């Protein structure tokens, strides 16, 4: 494979090639198999080159759909998602997705068209300073000034996006740069003196952690998306089993440790399990792996892991000590660090009492809800989803109640099957992300679990399902409200439901039908089960509108400003 492109590259070295063709070659060099995008004036030369190259391109119905699809693709494949949009509004429509990818460390390479270099800075038609706009929400960004720079910039961009702490990189290409021809430089090796991510951990710190492990009676591991990004699930399992340490996960870390494992405590944080949160509260050694201790996880910092020695393993040194005081800082890739820990593991500490103690919490305070025969409970809906798909589906969500129920009740036993907007909390993320996930992993069933509010933000992407006949199943958790907003208004604002009730909504089944997609409205558990089973076997796109209890709340819950041990609604 590699030899063939070297040969190909040599053959064109002498010829003049346009910026747009260099762009295509750059994508081919990176083995890009799909581009998510939307055309427009400034990217016409690039789209022309795409047309000639027969590069697979998914035309979404809005640029936001394109970038979320690329995020879903990146999340399940581990490869950078590639996005292409035009200048001005095309580029600004990507901003939400860029910010989302930045905060959740999702590798993306985003190409935006730009007005010609001769008119940049003159407020030309469809001009926006996208490099300036996206500076704080990209890992890095570029504006290409000369066509001959494009190959090096693309190489750098893919490298930066998918190494170290992953993230979005944007490349802004002025229209004339795409048109101008350039000689291909023989040597377009990248040189990034200011970017050398640390992968190998400091052996001294590894030793310190091993020593702490021997003394610890109540250790807990908290795993985040960093474990998934590093593909370190096996090393994590080996580490936890050897030392017999219970494992809690962050929202984005779900799937990093098998949910059905006896040492698994489930999700921690604002809507986490009692066992996971109490473990974080009570532990004497907290080992954070690829997690960034954000406020939705820790609750009030004055009560978070106060009795513990904190060890933090992260590829990004800036995360260590950012939110919590860290005694054992380990900068390194989760995979390398965990294997170093496994290789140098000393004697085990005695954690048996602690493990038993937490198991009691697990059995005595499980996630629970009140059942009602006359209504479809959203929690039950997610349990049915798990049952019908045998827990093997890729599930994507927006943000809010349905997201939390999916995190709580669709338990993940394998990595890279959970796609959710964690840090930014983007409504409208789940459905387009599911499209990208299906394209990235066509073998597994893909289910977009969305709220009735969020779905209405990006439902135009039904056109993509129709277009590509993608068997994505959209499950609308329909409570006719912006559920999480409504829940907070109920609890903290004396039930003043200010603009959170969506009584007026479209007939989602008819809407699907308008796109030539089958749909069904389900109000009972049986209807859900039947429709899902049929949809899964049909291998066709499907929209399932599930009418659930409208005033159901997500519990347990840590109220804002409260400590991680002060959960409300524990027993349901």
């Amino acid at each position, binding site marked *: 494979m590699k030899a063939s492109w070297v040969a190909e590259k040599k053959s064109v070295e002498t010829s003049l090639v346009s910026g747009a063709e260099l762009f295509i070659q750059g994508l081919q060099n990176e083995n890009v198999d799909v581009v998510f995008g939307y055309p427009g004036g400034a990217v016409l030369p690039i789209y022309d080159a795409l047309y000639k190259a027969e590069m697979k391109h998914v035309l979404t119905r809005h640029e936001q759909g394109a970038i979320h699809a690329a995020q879903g693709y990146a999340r399940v494949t581990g490869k950078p998602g590639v996005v292409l949009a035009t200048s001005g509004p095309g580029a600004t429509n990507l901003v939400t997705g860029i910010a989302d990818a930045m905060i959740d460390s999702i590798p993306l390479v985003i190409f935006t068209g730009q007005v010609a270099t001769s008119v940049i800075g003159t407020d030309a038609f469809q001009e926006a300073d996208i490099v*300036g706009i996206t*500076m704080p929400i990209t890992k*890095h960004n570029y504006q290409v000034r000369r066509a001959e720079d494009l190959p090096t910039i693309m190489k750098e961009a893919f490298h930066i996006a998918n190494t170290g702490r992953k993230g979005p990189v944007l490349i802004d290409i002025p229209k004339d740069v795409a048109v101008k021809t350039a000689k291909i430089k023989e040597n377009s090796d990248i040189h990034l003196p*200011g970017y050398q991510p*640390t992968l190998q951990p400091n052996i001294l710190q590894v030793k310190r952690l091993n020593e702490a492990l021997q003394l610890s009676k109540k250790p807990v591991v908290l795993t985040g998306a960093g474990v998934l990004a590093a593909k370190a699930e096996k090393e994590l399992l080996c580490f936890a089993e050897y030392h017999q340490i219970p494992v809690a996960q962050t929202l984005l870390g779900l799937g990093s440790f098998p949910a059905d494992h006896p040492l698994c405590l489930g999700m921690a944080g604002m809507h986490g399990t009692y066992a996971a949160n109490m473990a974080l509260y009570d532990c004497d050694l907290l080992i954070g792996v690829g997690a960034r201790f954000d406020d939705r996880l820790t609750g009030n910092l004055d009560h978070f892991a106060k009795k513990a020695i904190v060890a933090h393993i992260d590829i*990004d*040194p800036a995360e260590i*000590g950012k939110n919590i005081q860290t005694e054992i800082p380990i900068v390194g890739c989760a995979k390398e660090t965990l294997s170093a820990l496994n290789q140098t593991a000393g004697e085990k500490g005695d954690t048996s009492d602690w493990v038993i103690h937490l198991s009691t919490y697990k059995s005595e305070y499980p996630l629970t809800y009140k059942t009602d025969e006359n209504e479809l409970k959203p929690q039950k809906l997610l349990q049915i989803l798990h049952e019908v798909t045998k827990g093997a589906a890729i599930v994507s969500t927006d943000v809010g109640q349905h997201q939390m129920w999916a995190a709580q009740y669709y338990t993940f036993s394998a990595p890279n099957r959970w796609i959710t907007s964690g840090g930014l909390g983007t409504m409208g993320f789940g459905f387009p992300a599911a499209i990208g996930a299906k394209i990235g992993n066509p073998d597994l069933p893909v289910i977009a679990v969305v709220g009735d509010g969020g779905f209405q933000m990006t439902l135009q992407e039904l056109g993509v399902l129709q277009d590509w006949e993608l068997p994505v199943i959209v499950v609308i958790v329909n409570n006719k409200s912006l559920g999480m907003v409504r829940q907070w208004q109920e609890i903290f604002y004396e039930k003043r439901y200010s603009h959170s009730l969506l009584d007026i909504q479209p007939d989602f089944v008819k809407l699907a039908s308008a796109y030539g997609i089958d749909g069904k409205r389900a109000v009972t558990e049986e209807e859900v089960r039947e429709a899902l089973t049929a949809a899964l076997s049909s291998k066709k796109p499907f929209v399932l509108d599930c009418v659930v209890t409208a005033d159901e709340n997500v519990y347990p819950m840590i109220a804002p400003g409260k400590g991680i041990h002060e959960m409300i609604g524990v027993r349901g």
Partner: protein
Amino acid sequence: MRRIISATVLNESGVLNRLTGLLTKRQFNIENITVGHTEDPAVSKVTLTVWVEDDRKAEQLVKQLHKQINILKVRDLTNMALVSRELALIKVLTTPDTRSEIKMLIEPFRATVLDVSLENVTLEVTGDSEKIDALIELLRPYGIKEISRTGVTAIPRGTQKKVLELHPYSIM
């Protein structure tokens, strides 16, 4: 506390924007900032003075700056033995009576007169910020018309005799 941070950056457009944008995003307030070329034309040096609440914030600042792709090296010079200088241009009102008095006054500060007119003189003074502050206070009674200060630029001394509180950053 006041921190003097030195950053070596690639001499590319947008770097300063990225750097100051980062400080805004993370809520650091820049007191002053200087940028200039170094011995390598591809590399510039930024010296900035910032107010931070505590050591942890200072560490965050260094780490966040270091994360930027086109920032090559970041050093917190605050607790190092260093030479730091600032230049100020000061325009002071004068009368025939005060002109020679001012000349006497500025002598110990090694300030020089750059421009003289009938109503005022313009002085140049170089030194650490405290020295410049002192001179300004001294001249204030005469009536200061205009001040222009460059901000601090700094370099660590060749010999570091005693480092009071060098923080073991976990970057490397």
